[in-house]
């Protein structure tokens, strides 16, 4: 189908498991002006951020190669990428994990098993509407 709106914003989805990637990607695709990029592990995620910084990152805490925590702290400690909002999520959902992530600079968190995908979408929306960048009129 022809989509008249050209996505202007990108979301980087970092998740190693296919089903969740599919679920979140599909959910996020409900947002018209977003394009979803995917990374399967920490290294890939960092590479993609350097190539083209996204407007928001959804970061799984449990990843192969480099853990989500490592990616998080690396990005938040880098002046170039510090401003990118990061939502972390994990099945674990233990208080300690969440606290740790928030301390490292995460902007929000999601517990996979408790938060239906659409709520995720809402969180994303909230985080990004506060971050509206002034775009040139031409798309």
């Amino acid at each position, binding site marked *: 189908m022809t989509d008249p709106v050209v996505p202007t914003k990108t979301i980087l989805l970092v998740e190693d498991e296919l*089903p*969740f990637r*599919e*679920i*979140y990607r599909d959910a996020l695709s*409900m947002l018209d002006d977003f394009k979803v990029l995917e990374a399967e592990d920490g290294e890939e995620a960092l590479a993609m951020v350097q190539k083209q910084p996204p407007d928001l990152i959804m970061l799984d805490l449990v990843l192969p190669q480099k853990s989500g925590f490592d990616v998080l702290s690396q990005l938040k400690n880098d002046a170039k990428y510090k401003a990118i909002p990061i939502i972390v999520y994990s*099945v*674990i959902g233990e208080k300690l994990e969440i606290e740790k992530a928030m301390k490292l600079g995460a902007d929000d968190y999601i517990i996979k098993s408790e938060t239906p*995908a*659409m709520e995720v979408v809402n969180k994303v929306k909230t985080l990004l509407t506060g971050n509206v960048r002034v775009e040139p009129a031409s798309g």
Partner: protein
Amino acid sequence: MSVSFPKEDLRQRVRWYLGLRWYLVVTLGAAGAIPQFLQEGFVAQVQQNVAIILLVLAINSVFLGISSFRGLRYSVYQALAIIQLVLDVGIVTGVVYLNGGIENIVVALYVIPIIMSGALLGRRVIYLTGMAAAIIYDALLVLDYTHVITPQNILAPALHANGNYVVQTLFFAPVMLLIITVVTDFVAKLVRERTQLTTKLEVVTAERAEIEAIIKSMGSALVAVDRQGKITMVNDAFEHLSGWARRDVIGVDLDTVLPLLSERGKKIESDKRPLLQLLNSDPHSPASAIQHVSRYYYAKKDGGIFPFVGSVAPIVLLGEVIGATTVFEDASSIKQIDQLKTNFVALASHQLKTPISEIQGYATNMLQGVTGRLTKQQTDYLTAIQEITLRCNKLITDLLDAVVLEQGSIRVNIEAVQLSKVIKRVVTAYQARVKQKSLKIAVIEPEQEITVRADGDTLVEIIGNVVANAVSYTKKHTTITIETKADGDEGVILVRDEGAGIDKNVLEHLFLKDDVLSSAPEAEGGTGVGLYLAKELLSLQKGKISVVSSTSKGTTMAIRIPLKGRKHDRSSRSN
């Protein structure tokens, strides 16, 4: 008369027989030989008699000596008595033959012992025969004396040799013989009783030794204490487990030898120690005081500790508590296995969360239109899937919590918590669920904020579990009411439903870990663990839960939690 009796008894009787006989031979022999000796003309006969007496005595002494050995065969003792008897009869016969007639002295010397032997050895025949012979002889004496008869042949020398009829009659008087019989019978009885007593003592000693051997070799450790809490008995297993030697612990205070420690390693004081508390139990129902103990540790002699599982019980004797015992085993391996099992359950539960989340994610996406328009049926199906996965999730969370609880490592952070906020969270969490069942939640709160001392998150979970239970039990289109109020020094949260009430049998099991809810009428397969968890988590925060249910009025669960301002410690761990 008894024919068979214990060997020792026989030995004693034979000894008595030979001994008494020996004594008689000596005294009667002397009494008879001496007057004869003094009468001249009978020197030869006296010499002959003395020789025979000495010979007889020698044989008797040898037999007496042999019978003093214990442990010989049954037949040996019997043989001694029989041989002696035969010898006696033979000697009497021989003397009669040699003398051409019965010599009264000789007869006296041997008839009496024969009678005695009969009594002691239990051969009535023998001594009755002896007594008969004596009576006959006596009668003959009397008849001869009174010149009624004139004895011929064998009896003549005896009757006429000594004119001393009186003495002779006395010797042979049946009365005297009867007395001798009675006395030896009495002696026999005493001997029997004594040997029986000795045998009984041996049996008792053997039994005691057997019991001690049982206790000693038991696989479990055993410790017994007296009323003062001092150790009176221990077995080998105890020595191995504790490292103490038996002789070092008898009479010592229990707490010195075997201190009791909690799971945290804290020593339990004597007055709180189950084993010592038992010393005050009711002697009339000792069985009710028996306790099975686990979740404790003992300290060894070298200071190392080990977990144990066992039991304690009071010792009751003659209606009085005289002490207490404990039997226990090292539970280290049990604990290890338990820990592995717990870990496994935790891990498995954890792993289950992921696939369930995935199912949920797909279903939710579809419901939100990601895959396009849905038919009504598809929507219904997906909604069902969603609800089911939510339930699964809750079950897993509860399972995990229960496992963690069991481990004793769950932590609650007690702080000031506002009840209104807690209720709000609960309502939000269950909004969808409640709507699905066409139910309503009504909240009744007082004007003034109620602040309690609790762990906010677990309180939400607890109330949530109660609400979930209400949702399971109530009828469609009814209202679940959550009411909060302050009552004394407690905050009270009431969850009321308008359901059909909970069956009495179910009520009993409601807060236990077994799954009873599956048998309830409208059970949605509730967690089975949820309410147990609620109760346990509450108790960690010094709270309580109770339930009132009736078929007409529905069910009301009351959760009580201490209000802020009541004396409490800041944060606490379980146990």
